[in-house]
């Protein structure tokens, strides 16, 4: 339920934004249902707005969501006995939230193939419903992010971090990753501009490496 409610307002924001850029209601909904990419979709809209090539749009959405590669690799050892078609379904519905909830369930020992599909389905429905509502009502509701509901996503991330940290060391590494993520944009001063996607990937990999190397 919280995952559904977390997706709803952000999905609405996407729906509104897509409509203002010239997507039809159908296109907005199909885009959300097939990509299921959260931030990746917002970045894509931003780039499409500039009239960039489709290739540039795809490159941006891929980079922003490259962290899914890390998620997928982390989840994989738990999916050894899962048949390939079901792996495809789970991969399709892999997002920040579904990953974190499935990992937390995994640790609590309550995770099954069925529960993972359920989590994926709920997020998909929340995201698509939000997009549909936002796209349909875009003329009336204005920008849903101005209400403060967009904080549902960060609030959820914050709770997920606590849920994912098995011990103090892991919580500390989460903090280290955050510090790197905040420091990396400073490289702009030396002429290196990193997109958000790269920042998240680099800071996560560096912090995870520090965690693994110091874990004795």
């Amino acid at each position: 339920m919280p995952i559904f409610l977390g997706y709803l307002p952000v999905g609405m924001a996407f729906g509104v934004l897509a409509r203002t850029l010239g997507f039809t209601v159908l296109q907005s909904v199909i885009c959300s249902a097939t990509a299921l990419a959260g931030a990746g979709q917002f970045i894509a809209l931003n780039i499409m707005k500039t009239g960039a090539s489709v290739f540039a749009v795809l490159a941006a959405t891929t980079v922003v969501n490259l962290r899914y590669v890390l998620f997928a690799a982390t989840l994989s050892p738990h999916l050894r006995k899962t048949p390939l078609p079901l792996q495809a379904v789970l991969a399709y519905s892999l997002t920040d939230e579904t990953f974190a909830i499935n990992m937390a369930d995994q640790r609590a020992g309550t995770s099954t193939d069925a529960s993972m599909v359920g989590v994926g389905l709920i997020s998909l429905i929340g995201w698509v419903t939000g997009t549909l509502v936002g796209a349909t009502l875009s003329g009336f509701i204005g920008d849903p992010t101005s209400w403060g509901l967009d904080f549902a996503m960060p609030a959820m991330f914050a709770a997920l971090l606590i849920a994912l940290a098995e011990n103090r060391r892991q919580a500390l590494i989460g903090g280290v990753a955050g510090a790197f993520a905040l420091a990396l944009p400073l490289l702009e001063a030396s002429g290196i501009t990193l997109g958000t996607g790269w920042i998240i990937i680099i800071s996560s990999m560096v912090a995870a490496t520090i965690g693994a190397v110091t874990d004795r």
Partner: protein
Amino acid sequence: MSSNYIWAAIVGMWVANFAIRFIPVAVVSRMDLPEPVMRWLRYVPVSVMGSLIALEVLRPGGEYQAPWNGAHLPAALVSMATYYYTKSFMGASVAGVVAFIVLRGFIG
């Protein structure tokens, strides 16, 4: 923005987003990963979440924001504390959003 352009982007995003999720699952779940890699993977989830939250809270909208200058950080802390004590994602999300809306009323 032409309709063909939008459809091409939609189909492309579908393929790209599925590929980066499915290929690692299909490949890695069929391999035996060495212990150091497994140990590294154990630190990936918290690292990604830590990075995501830090950017959402202290660099919202791509601009640095001092922690005392906005509702983001305190509201995130409310959400964390709520989860820590209640173990409820629902409660934590709602508490975080309410804190955000209320605090924003005070500090903008």
